[in-house]
């Protein structure tokens, strides 16, 4: 009894030390940033206060909030578009045998290895600076992530379960809805979770070239005006949103899905 309690206490002490180091170092780094920023020109390293002020501006002033909201719109729009196209490609690769090689061996590798910035530049040339250009560039970046995850889902379907389904009903639609779709949920959600992070990061790139509003546009403007504090504030927003979205929404939901559908 006693040794186990000792082990527990030891483990707790070790965890406390780890937390101390982790938080202490962050505090130390921010402190160092505070201390050094007065001696460094603001366009190289603006003070944390300045960055925080700009960070808050994105929810308090109309113009900045408009850019943030536009990016939000771009991210969710692009996610919806890529999810539907990626799902269609995965469905086609699974059910339409003749086109499987074309999708898996040609379309997927092309999309996967083509540079995101290439799509952004092409999108501007083809669609001008518009929402369409941003959606196009982002969808091209996101579709391979969605496709490969759903494709893995289809590949891992248990044939025995499908046979069982066949013995219950001959309606393909019913089998798809009641057996295959639930089995795909974990993969679809994993795809969404990965794409959420990628989408936020790629939206900057797409908007930098392809839009005259949104956070990417703000970053480009600030870059030209040497307003490094605004750039850092935008980066901070993206980190906060990606991190919070992942921890507060995607992680708990995925854990629930895993419990519900898990194998």
């Amino acid at each position, binding site marked *: 009894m006693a040794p186990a309690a000792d082990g527990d206490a030891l483990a707790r002490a*070790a965890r406390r*030390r*780890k*937390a101390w*180091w*982790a938080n202490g*170092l*962050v505090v130390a780094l921010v402190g160092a940033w505070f201390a050094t920023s007065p001696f460094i020109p603001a*366009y*190289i390293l603006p003070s944390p206060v300045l960055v925080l002020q700009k960070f808050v501006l994105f929810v308090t002033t109309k113009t900045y909030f408009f850019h943030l909201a536009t990016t939000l719109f771009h991210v969710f729009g692009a996610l919806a578009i890529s999810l539907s196209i990626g799902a269609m490609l995965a469905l086609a690769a*699974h*059910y339409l*045998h*003749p*086109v*499987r*090689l*074309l999708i898996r*061996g*040609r379309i997927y590798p*092309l999309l*996967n*290895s*083509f*540079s*995101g*910035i*290439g799509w952004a*530049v*092409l999108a501007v*040339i*083809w669609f001008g600076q518009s929402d369409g250009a941003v959606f196009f560039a982002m969808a091209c970046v996101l579709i391979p992530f969605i496709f490969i995850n759903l494709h893995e889902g289809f590949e891992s379907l248990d*044939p025995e379960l*499908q046979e069982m389904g*066949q013995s219950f009903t001959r309606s*393909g639609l019913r*089998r798809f809805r009641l057996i295959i779709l639930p089995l795909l949920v974990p993969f679809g959600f994993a795809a969404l979770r990965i794409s959420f*992070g990628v989408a*936020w*990061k790629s939206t*900057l*790139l797409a908007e*930098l070239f392809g839009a005259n509003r949104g956070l*990417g546009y703000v*970053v480009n403007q600030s*870059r030209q005006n*040497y307003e*490094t504090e605004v*750039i*850092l504030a*935008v*980066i901070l927003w*993206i*980190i906060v949103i*990606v*991190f919070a979205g992942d921890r507060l929404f995607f992680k708990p939901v995925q854990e629930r899905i895993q419990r519900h559908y898990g194998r």
Partner: protein
Amino acid sequence: MADKPANPGGRRAALIQRVIDEGGVVLAILGWWSISKTMPSFVLPGPSDVAVALWKLFSEPALVMNTVATTLRVIASVALALAGGLALALVARMIPDLEWVILRRLQPLLNSFPSIGWAILAVIWFDVSTFSVLFVQVVILLPFCLINLSAGLDEIDQEVVEMGRSFTRSSWRNLTKLYLPLLMPYLVAALRISYGVCWKLALVAELFGANSGLGYVMVRAQYTANNALVLATCVAIVLLFIAGEKLIIDPLARRFAGPRG
């Protein structure tokens, strides 16, 4: 609508698949060619224009220099990121106090930092230089390497580690004879991922941060509305990526990532 029969029609089906596959590619190129004829070349250059521009990237000395610069930077960044990722993963493992600093603070931060942010900050901090390109690429690849390698370290059997310690107390010998061989599959996986990511990243990193390299060529081509060259740089990246994967990474994977005993 049968659910994926085990062997759908055998060779005939395989042949049909092949025909649709190759035919699809040919059709796409034909479609591209016929549409491009009705459009100005700065909107959609034809396949032949792009092929000519692509050839120049690998033959005209001034352009070859850029292609080589990008390739060398990719190789250097992947090597540095692997070494850095390995060092961080080992530190997190060997010094438990620092585990959370690396895995719960540094790694999520690097992982969620947008690449274009690094690209812009690097130019502000280090000016336009090869160093700033390398900085951007390494810092973006680092989390991929770190995640893979620390997963690899987690997988190492504690009993094997104990056995190693009973043979020698030299931690260097333990590292080279025990940890590294056991980590090899994860190193290869990290190499494969970072290599792929790095080629796609190269254009972003060189967009602001370099006055040589394919990214620089692409930006200049975009300013002069030379869309054939824009497409050619993208295709060149895809080709270089595939060549490196087939010639270097696949053989490495076959050699080292075999079944772990």
